[in-house]
C-alpha cells in the first residue's frame, strides 16, 4: 500500500503540478520584467537620461490653445499636464452626456413604427459604426468645421451660430472648432453603439409588458418611459458602461484635431524633454484612474437599478 503511493507520488500528484506551474509563472514573469528593466536602464544610461519626475517643475515654454484653468507658457510642465487633464475630463463628461442622449434617441428610433424614422436611424448606425473614429474626427474638423463660413457671416440655427471659429451656444458660451469637432465626433460615434444597446435592451423586454402597458391606456411615450425603459435599463447598464469607458479612452484621439487634451500635452512634453518613461507612466496612471472611477460609479449605479429579489 505504502509502496504504490510512493511510486506515484510526485509526477502524478496534482498538487505538485499546481505548485510547479505557479513557480514557473512567477519565475518567467520576474525574469521578463528584470530583463526589460535591465535593458531600459542600460539604454537610458547610454543616452545619458536619468529617470525622475523633477522635469515636471521646469518651465514648459509652449502655449496651450484652450484651458479652463489659468495657464501661460512660463508655467511648469506639471501645470501644462494638469490643463490637459482638465480638458480631457471636460470632453469626456460632455461627450458621455451627448452620446447618451443621441444614442437613446437613435435606439428608440430604430424601433419606431414609422418606416422613414426607422431607416434613417439604421443608416446612421450602420454608416458611422463601420468607419474609424479617427477618420470621422479628421472629417468633422477639416472638412466641416474649418470650411464653415467665417465669423462675420456665420450660419445661424436655433440660436446656435456655426462658423470656422467654432460654435456659439445660446447664452454666449463659445466652443472652439477643435473642441466642437472632438465632442461631436466622439459622441456621434459612441452613440451608434449606445443605440444598438438601447435597441437590444428594449427588445429584451417581454411583449406582455407592452400589452399590459397598452391595456392600462398609456400613451406610446409613457409606455416607454414608465414601463419599458426601467426594465430595459437593467440589461443596458453594463454594456453602456463599456461604451462610456471607450469614449473616455477614445478622447485621447484629440491630438488628431489639435485639441489639447492630456495625451496631446503629454506628447508635446515628450517631444520637448525626451522623457519617454515618465510620460508613459503619467499617461497610463491617469487613464487607468479615469477608467477605474467610471467603472466604480457605474457599478454603484448598476447596483441601484438591479431588481431586488425577496
Amino acid at each position, binding site marked *: 500500500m505504502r509502496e504504490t503511493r510512493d511510486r506515484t507520488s510526485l509526477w502524478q500528484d496534482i498538487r505538485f503540478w499546481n505548485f510547479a506551474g505557479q513557480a514557473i509563472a512567477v519565475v518567467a514573469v520576474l525574469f521578463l520584467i528584470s530583463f526589460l528593466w535591465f535593458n531600459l536602464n542600460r539604454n537610458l544610461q547610454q543616452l545619458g537620461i536619468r529617470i525622475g519626475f523633477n522635469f515636471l517643475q521646469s518651465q514648459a515654454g509652449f502655449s496651450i490653445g484652450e484651458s479652463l484653468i489659468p495657464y501661460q507658457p512660463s508655467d511648469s510642465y506639471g501645470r501644462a499636464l494638469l490643463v490637459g487633464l482638465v480638458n480631457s475630463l471636460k470632453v469626456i463628461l460632455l461627450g458621455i452626456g451627448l452620446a447618451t442622449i443621441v444614442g437613446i434617441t437613435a435606439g428608440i428610433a430604430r424601433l419606431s413604427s*414609422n418606416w422613414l424614422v426607422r431607416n434613417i436611424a439604421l443608416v446612421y448606425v450602420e454608416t458611422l459604426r463601420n468607419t474609424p473614429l479617427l477618420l470621422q474626427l479628421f472629417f468633422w474638423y477639416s472638412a466641416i468645421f474649418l470650411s464653415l463660413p467665417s465669423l462675420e457671416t456665420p450660419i445661424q440655427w436655433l440660436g446656435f451660430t456655426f462658423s470656422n471659429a467654432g460654435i456659439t451656444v445660446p447664452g454666449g458660451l463659445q466652443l472652439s472648432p477643435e473642441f466642437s469637432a472632438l465632442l461631436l465626433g466622439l459622441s456621434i460615434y459612441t452613440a451608434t453603439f449606445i443605440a444598438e444597446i438601447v435597441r437590444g435592451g428594449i427588445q429584451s423586454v417581454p411583449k406582455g409588458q407592452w400589452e399590459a402597458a397598452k391595456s392600462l391606456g398609456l400613451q406610446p411615450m409613457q409606455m416607454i418611459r414608465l414601463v419599458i425603459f426601467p426594465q430595459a435599463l437593467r440589461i443596458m447598464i453594463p454594456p453602456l458602461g463599456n461604451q462610456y469607458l471607450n469614449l473616455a479612452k477614445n478622447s485621447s484621439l484629440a491630438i488628431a484635431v489639435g485639441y489639447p487634451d492630456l495625451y496631446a500635452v503629454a506628447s508635446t512634453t515628450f517631444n520637448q524633454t525626451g522623457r519617454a518613461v515618465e510620460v508613459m507612466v503619467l499617461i*497610463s496612471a491617469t487613464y487607468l484612474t479615469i477608467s477605474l472611477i467610471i467603472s466604480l460609479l457605474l457599478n454603484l449605479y448598476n447596483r441601484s437599478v438591479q431588481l431586488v429579489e425577496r
Partner: protein
Amino acid sequence: MMNTPQKTPLQWVRANLFNGWFNTLLTLFCGWAIAQTGIGLFRWLTTQAQWAVVTTNLRLFLVGRYPQDQVWRLWMVLAIAIGLIAASIFNAFLVKQPKVKERLNWTITSLILPATLLILWLIGGGFGLSRISTNLWGGLLLTLLVAFTSILLAFPFGVLLALGRQSTLPIVKGFCTAYIELVRGLPLIGILFMAQVMLPLVLPGQPNIDRVVRAIAGLVLFNAAYLAENVRGGLQAIPRGQTEAAKALGFNTPLTVGLIVLPQALKIAIPAIVGQFISLFKDTSLLALFALLELTGIGRSILAQPEFLGRNAEVYLFIGLIYWVFCFAMSRLSRQLEK
C-alpha cells in the same frame, strides 16, 4: 412591424408613415431633413467636389508607393487571399455534410499560416524576389496586412491569457487578470506610443526595429487582452458537465482543455472575435498618427500636397467608403455565421 403582402402601396404608406398625428409630423420633419441634406449634397457634388484627387492617386490609396513593376506580386497575394476566403465562405454556407465540413475546416485552418508566410514573402521579397522595404508599403495594402498579421499573432496570446484567467492557480490567474485589466484601461494611442518609443528602449542593444513591426507589436499587445475577454466569454459558456465528463473518461487537464473545452469555447466566441477584428481593422487608422502611410496616413499625406490642398471632404469620404465596405461586409458575414 412586417406588413402583409396584400397591402396596396397607399395602405402601406398610411400604415408606415402617416398613422396618427405624431408619426405624420415625424415623417414630414424627416422628409424635410432628407430633402435639405440631399439638396446640399447634390449641390456640393455638382459644383464643388473635384474627384481628381482620388482618381489620380488611386494607386497610392491602394498600395502606397509600392514599385509599379512589382505590383504583379500583389495580384498573386490577392488571388491567394480571395481563394482562402472563398473556400471558407463556401464551406460555412454551402457544404452540408458535417464530416466533409469538418475536414475542409481543418484544411483551411492549417493553410492559414503557410499562406500568411507566402503572402509576407511575396510582399516583402527576399529569397529570389527583389526586396521591397516597408516604407514603400502603404495604403489599403498596409492596412489589411497590419490588421491581419496583428489578429493572427494576438490570437494565441489571447487564448493563453483567457485560459490563465480561468485557471484555478491563483498566481497565474492574478498575472493574467492584471495584464488584461491594465491594457483594457489604457487608450490604444498610449499603447502604440509605448510600442513606438519604449520598445527600442527595453530591448537589448537599442535595436533599430522597423516602424511597421513596432506598430504590429503595439496592436498585438492591445488586442490580446480584448481577445482574451472574448475567449473567456466562450469558456464560461461551456457547461461544467463537459469538464467533468472528460475527467471521468480519464483525460488530464491539458487534454480536457485542448480537446474538449477550447474547441467548443472558440466556436461560441467566433462572432465576438470577428467583432474584435472589425474594431482592430478600424483601429489601424491610428497608425497615421505615428507617421505610417496606411489608408488614413496616405490620405493625409496626399492632402498635404499643394495641388490637392482643401480636398479634405473628397479624400475622407473615399477612404471612409473603403473602410465601410470591409467592416460592413465582415459584420454581415459574422451575423450570418451566428445563425
